[in-house]
């Protein structure tokens, strides 16, 4: 019963890191630069949120499978197999959690008063430095919110993961898959314990992130 927990943790953490980076990247690029077809990109990013996870999983399977373009490329050139490995689970968790990170980063960036970025510019900062030292810290509450949701989504991800990573005990069986099969095979006790662990665990994560958020929040504090 331990291995799905550790695996879920590992997969969700790595996926959240990627979502974090990509969500912030796209949130910034698409909303601060004049990117043509912004609305289309945005829709593509949000799509995995709308499509049933099993459909997303199927699309990923086609793309990353042996016969898919990306899957073929990775196996040929790097010998990396995606299907039926935890890497596949990371990819699916990342794809389904990215919309959450993106939207949260986006609204956080939009809400920042541009005067601070302008002030940093007059002080000689490069765009990248402004981003790191001003934009990102001021967007922090929204970013953390996105991280919480992404992590939650990544840890709960099931449909797409099952499709691309499979359900191999000890190798790709995550908590949700373990719960599903415990339920499926009538192991109510195991299912209940796993659900309980997920609840306790998510409580801790949300608690920790909230505490962190409070420390990092400069705007909302009473003056």
């Amino acid at each position, binding site marked *: 019963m331990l291995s799905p927990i550790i695996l879920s943790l590992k997969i969700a953490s790595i996926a959240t890191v990627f979502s974090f980076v990509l969500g912030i990247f796209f949130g910034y690029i698409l909303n601060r630069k004049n990117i043509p077809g912004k609305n289309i990109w945005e829709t593509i990013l949000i799509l995995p949120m709308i499509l049933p996870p099993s459909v997303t999983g199927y699309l990923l399977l086609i793309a990353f499978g042996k016969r898919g373009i990306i899957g073929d490329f990775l196996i040929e050139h790097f010998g990396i197999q995606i299907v039926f490995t935890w890497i596949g689970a990371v990819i699916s968790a990342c794809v389904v959690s990215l919309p959450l990170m993106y939207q949260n980063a986006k609204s956080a960036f939009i809400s920042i008063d541009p*005067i*601070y970025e*302008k*002030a*940093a*510019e*007059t*002080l*000689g*900062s*490069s765009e990248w*430095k402004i981003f790191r*030292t*001003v934009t990102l*810290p*001021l967007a*922090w509450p929204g970013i953390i919110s996105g991280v919480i949701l992404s992590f939650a989504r990544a840890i709960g991800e099931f449909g797409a993961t099952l499709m691309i990573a499979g359900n191999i005990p000890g190798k790709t069986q995550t908590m949700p898959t373990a719960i599903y099969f415990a339920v499926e095979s009538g192991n109510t006790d195991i299912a209940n314990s796993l659900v309980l662990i997920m609840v306790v665990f998510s409580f801790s994560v949300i608690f920790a992130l909230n505490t962190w958020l409070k420390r990092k929040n*400069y*705007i909302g*504090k009473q*003056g």
Partner: protein
Amino acid sequence: MNTYFKIKSQLDHFSVDIEYEFESGVLVVQGESGAGKTTLLKFISGLKNPEVGKIAFGEQIVFDHIDKINIPTRHRNIGYVFQNYALFPNMTVAENITYGIKNMIDFKDKAKREKLLSYCESVMNTFHIDHLKKKYPRNISGGEKQRVALSRAIVTRPKLLLLDEPFSALDEKTKKIVYKEFEQFKQNFHIPTILITHSSLECEMFADQKIVLENGKRVN
């Protein structure tokens, strides 16, 4: 060093058309509320770009609509005190003030870095804000904010200083101290300065030249 600017621009409901050249020293800009003083500084700093115009800091042309020159704000090497200060809410007073010098190449050299930082210290000292170092902008008073903004703008020793009513929130005693410090700073570093002020006293004290704006145009 001569500073030259010629700016023509149509903002919605407000049109700007100003040309002027001044030699090193302090140019005081006056004009009624809403005359376009802040707007002028935005153009000169590059935060806004005019449709037609040319801006030069000495030899260096930073904007020219004909030659399509437009040096970005961060390379114009200016110091700007905003009318509402625009202190970074996520940084302490000390971090706000040292923010600009960390962008300077000199900062990589250890000896120079020490010198820059100790210069920051001395500026904070003379402006009586050293006890606020660790406070965040939301927790300091209006006048304190203004002094922090002024310090932040001058510690990088910019090529041009843009000051938007930098003394308005100071009480008279503090004002005197800051005036004296500013006077000294001006004499030591000879930085061309554009100073927006409503105070005739300040104008008298600092102005080497003076222009008056009205409705986006120069009237004197």
